[in-house]
């Protein structure tokens, strides 16, 4: 599973996740939330991890950040390397030096991620005081500077405002400001625009893309929304029931998916361009992670499923073409169909 090269350069990738496995011990049994996920991220690159609830996408992000609740969670296998340095098994004290400084994360709900009783400027300035040992004046100046960088109008004037005095979009900008304050190499954004209105969504996505270029960061977008990441990410990883179903360059995957799940998702998205009547919905429900079906986890819902999909172990993630990989016994067939987004008529 180590041959998955996302980019094309030959240098050590900024972040390499290899065959990651995460389990949760619950009252009802063992939940295998992540079952062998691998990807690589290079500086200046944006990748997206796409999946529905329960796919393991957020757990993967938390594992990288070292913020999995342990117990009940446990990384049972695999490695996460940042510039070649192993993060799995790192002591909490050492991880603190990684978090914020090298890898930072923004969440869906900015309001609950910000302290309601401290003004936002202070919260940003604190990052500089704690991590860089900056003095009060210097930290304040640096905070205003970073607020300007995320394009908060009248940054100096709004330094003393509290989170509830900002709109949802502005709060997400403040979160981003806090997270880029220490110029991390990797920024993880977990559903950064899901709670926002569409007209604000695009602003935030644009901002993330610009900041990524400015700072030459690696950006990981975690999302359930295929539309939001279409033009921002270069590579995407599609996850289902803790497994990677498909991985590759975004243009390739969107136009010629090589996995029936990706295909199903793309086809079930309502089309703004035309009224299509009934949607080609994916049948059934995502599996309960306590009882993942044998074989390919998608087989009970898959229109293509054959005996092999139930009887053989889950298919491995194999190359389809170039850096495009798919975990499906019929990857080539699926790919050759292309996608069929119904058009009016």
């Amino acid at each position, binding site marked *: 599973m180590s041959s998955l090269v996302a980019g094309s350069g030959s240098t050590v990738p900024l972040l390499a996740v290899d065959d990651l496995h995460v389990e949760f*011990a*619950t*009252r009802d049994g063992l939940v295998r939330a992540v079952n062998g996920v691998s990807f690589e991220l290079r500086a200046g690159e944006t990748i997206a991890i796409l999946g529905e609830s329960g796919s393991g996408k957020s757990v993967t992000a938390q594992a990288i950040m070292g913020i999995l609740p342990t117990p*009940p969670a446990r990384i049972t296998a695999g490695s996460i390397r940042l510039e070649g340095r192993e993060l799995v098994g790192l002591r909490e004290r050492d991880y603190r030096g990684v978090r914020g400084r090298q890898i930072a994360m923004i969440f869906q709900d900015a309001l609950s991620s910000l302290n309601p009783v401290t003004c936002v400027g202070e919260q940003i300035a604190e990052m500089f005081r704690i991590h860089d040992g900056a003095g009060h004046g210097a930290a304040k100046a640096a905070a205003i500077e970073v607020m300007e960088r995320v394009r908060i109008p009248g940054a100096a004037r709004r330094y003393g405002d509290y989170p509830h005095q900002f709109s949802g979009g502005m709060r997400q900008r403040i979160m981003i400001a806090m997270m880029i304050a220490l110029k991390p190499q990797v920024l993880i954004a977990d559903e950064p625009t899901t709670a926002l209105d569409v007209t604000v969504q695009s602003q935030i996505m644009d901002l993330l893309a610009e900041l990524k270029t400015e700072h030459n960061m690696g950006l990981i977008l975690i999302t359930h929304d295929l539309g939001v990441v279409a033009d921002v990410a270069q590579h995407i990883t599609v996850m289902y029931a803790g497994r990677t179903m498909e991985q590759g360059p975004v243009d390739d995957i969107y136009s010629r998916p090589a996995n*029936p799940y990706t*295909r*199903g998702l793309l*086809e079930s998205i309502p089309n703004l361009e035309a009224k299509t009547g*009934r*949607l*080609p*919905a994916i*049948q*059934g*429900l*995502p*599996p*309960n992670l306590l009882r993942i079906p044998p074989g390919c986890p998608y087989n*009970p819902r898959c*229109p*293509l499923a054959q005996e092999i999909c139930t009887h053989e172990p889950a298919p491995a993630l194999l190359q389809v073409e170039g850096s495009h990989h798919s975990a499906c016994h019929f990857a080539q067939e*699926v790919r050759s*169909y*292309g*996608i*069929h987004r119904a058009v009016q008529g």
Partner: protein
Amino acid sequence: MSESLSRPAPAVEAALEGGDTSAPRSQLGDAWHDLRHSALFWVSAVIIGAVLAIAAFPNAFADAAKTSALTGGCDFADFLQSPSEAHWFGTDQLGCDIYSFTIFGARPSIAVGLIAALLTTVLGTVVGVISGYYGGIVDSLLSRLVDIFFGLPLLLGGIVILSALTFPSIWGVVFVLVILGWVSAARLVRGTTIEAKNQDFVLAARALGATNSRIMWRHVLPNAVGPSIVVAVISLGGYIGAEATFSYLGLGLKDPDFSWGTMIAAAQSSFFQAPWTLLFPAGFLTVTVLAVILMGEAVRDGLDPKSRA
């Protein structure tokens, strides 16, 4: 070719498979599922079960005749004897058997606690639900009333009331505990009611045309009483202790009625010569109160879905 791939199934297709296939289980069922595995719950349940059995059927454990000098149950010659085969817990100043007294003293103690806990919960819940559900003027008035009663200290208020008025048997103590105790239940239920009435399922019931009383009793109350049941159990322990306190002060049960509290009061004068006169009733009281409070905590953990991993 691609048509065969997408296979648009009818809408009814869905949902039949997958999902939770376990047996139907209510929230109480979930709580029970958790409680079964709690050692704390079982220890307190056994103690409470034993105490309830004693309170309900004292004659099965001891001879009622031994609790009264009038029936010849006490032999003055035996006064202040230490525990022995004949008198397991020893005897008191009148030569009465402390074991028999302790057994027969359980009923009034437990009865006061149970009745007071039941009445405070019912009264507090009714006031709390009405106040929280209707809001506005009704809420303002009821809340001020609650504030006034909340300002009365239980012990001082109880002493004043019990000194001024006389009641038969345990009813004086019950009256005081209910009058001064219902407010905490009311406050709690008012809070949980406000939380419950703002839930979407209440909105859905209103959209169906449900009346206020239907919404209050069918939807809001079942979702609002959980915490007050826990508090009722915990306060039951407090009420048993409070009865003992009032009885100790001579304001609770009067002769010929007796309880653990009156026994502790009577032991004041003999404690140094005969510590068992105090230790046995006080021990039963403490263990019972503790078991009830632990039970309350176990139930709270069971009912709180957030405490589940």
